[in-house]
């Protein structure tokens, strides 16, 4: 598992990377009430705003952490946004992105580095 400075977690499964937000991020956001996901089969570039999360406090964006193609989005989140608070690193994944070059992951933090950043 790798982590971004925007509090995303990235889990590689072959050439597909599953993306969600960390428990720390979910806690900071508070109760999530709305999630807007991108369409599947969309080409995205690293840094694009592709997900909107609205909590009881405010709206925030999630950016694409990698260049690639969105191959799946988690439709459960549209009906049950609270899942983000209940199970942020499991059932509440946001999207799966197919990447050409897994080497893009190398620049991101390890679990230890991420824990240090938020401590």
């Amino acid at each position, binding site marked *: 598992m790798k982590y971004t400075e925007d509090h995303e977690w990235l889990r590689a499964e072959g050439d597909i990377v599953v993306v969600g937000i960390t428990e720390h991020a979910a806690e900071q956001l*508070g*109760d999530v*009430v*709305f999630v807007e996901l991108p369409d599947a089969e969309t080409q995205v570039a690293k840094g694009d705003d592709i997900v909107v999360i*609205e909590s009881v*406090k*405010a709206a925030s964006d999630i950016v694409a952490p990698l260049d690639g193609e969105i191959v799946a989005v988690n439709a459960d989140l*549209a009906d049950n946004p609270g899942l983000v608070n209940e199970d942020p690193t499991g059932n509440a994944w946001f999207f799966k992105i197919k990447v050409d070059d897994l080497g893009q992951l190398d620049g991101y933090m390890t679990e230890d580095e991420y824990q240090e950043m938020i401590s």
Partner: protein
Amino acid sequence: MPELKRTPLYDLHVALGAKMVPFAGYEMPVQYGMGVMKEHLWTREHAGLFDVSHMGQVRIIPKSGDISDAARAFETLVPVSILGLKEGRQRYAMFTNAHGGILDDLMVANRSDHLLAVVNAACKEDDIAHMTAGLAGCSVESQADRALLALQGPQAETALARLVPGGADMRFMDVADFDWQGAELWISRSGYTGEDGYEISLPNTKSVEFAEALLAMDEVEAIGLGARDSLRLEAGLCLYGSDIDSETTPVEAALEWAIQKARRRGGDREGGFPGADVIFEQLENGAPRRRVGLLPEGRAPMRAGTELYAGETHVGTVTSGAYGPSLEAPMSMGYVTTEYAETGTKLEGEVRGKRLPVTVADLPFRPSNYKR
């Protein structure tokens, strides 16, 4: 930036695990451990305790000793009948400016030999100056030595009655004094959540002890400003500075119910408050725009600042918007051109560049639960 002020309950909030944020010049609890959503629902089902000590409590004492002199003077600042406010009763009012705009909204109580005004925290210095300058023959006294707690929800009566048995006999908008362990409590049966409940003014020195006595009860949890905001929005109540301000009139704000007949054109004490001409004209012919409830379709909240359209025509702006935990849907309020203000009118709100459907709705979004 000036240093943030603290209420007498600051240490208690921190000990309870509150997340403290700046609000109207104070460090206030926005939420505790439960989080905004659960705190909101707790208040609707049980009883929530809110620290609202940042609000201004101001006594208006007539130098003549005759309360009607204070009431008469107060009527020069508000379009509301204060002479008609009976002893032991409270009502909603607003200070207006010469253009009919709202300088602040407030509660006024007739406490036998004086009036008590409870005003918004962000406005209290200006309000005190306004009252001091405008209330001839009265002494205007800020009660900085008193805290203010709100206990709200269907179990508020049960909880309060354990400490103050007489509280159960009050009805909505009654005010009365009680003694608790030698401290003088000024209690009103009111609040800003749409629920039954009380607002309790008490000496700072006793406030922590009293709050702890309530929090020790199974029915009562501490609730932060986050849930206070979603509760008041579901109840259709205005937040000063967002939904009403010096640019909005009581008629535009759909608050004309607060202007009694006696102060309207043809009434016994017609006019005599700032902006009466503008407000009378709007009462008779309608205002160009109107505050309305708005129910977005789907789950995306339309927050303050969302622009509203009917086709290509810009017709208004959202002033408050959030997810309603009891409504289980997003809800907003805002101003629209009067011809689009009718309940059921379909509009669109622009959220992140996309036009999404929204319908004009009646306020409040859910029925109030006051003990009348």
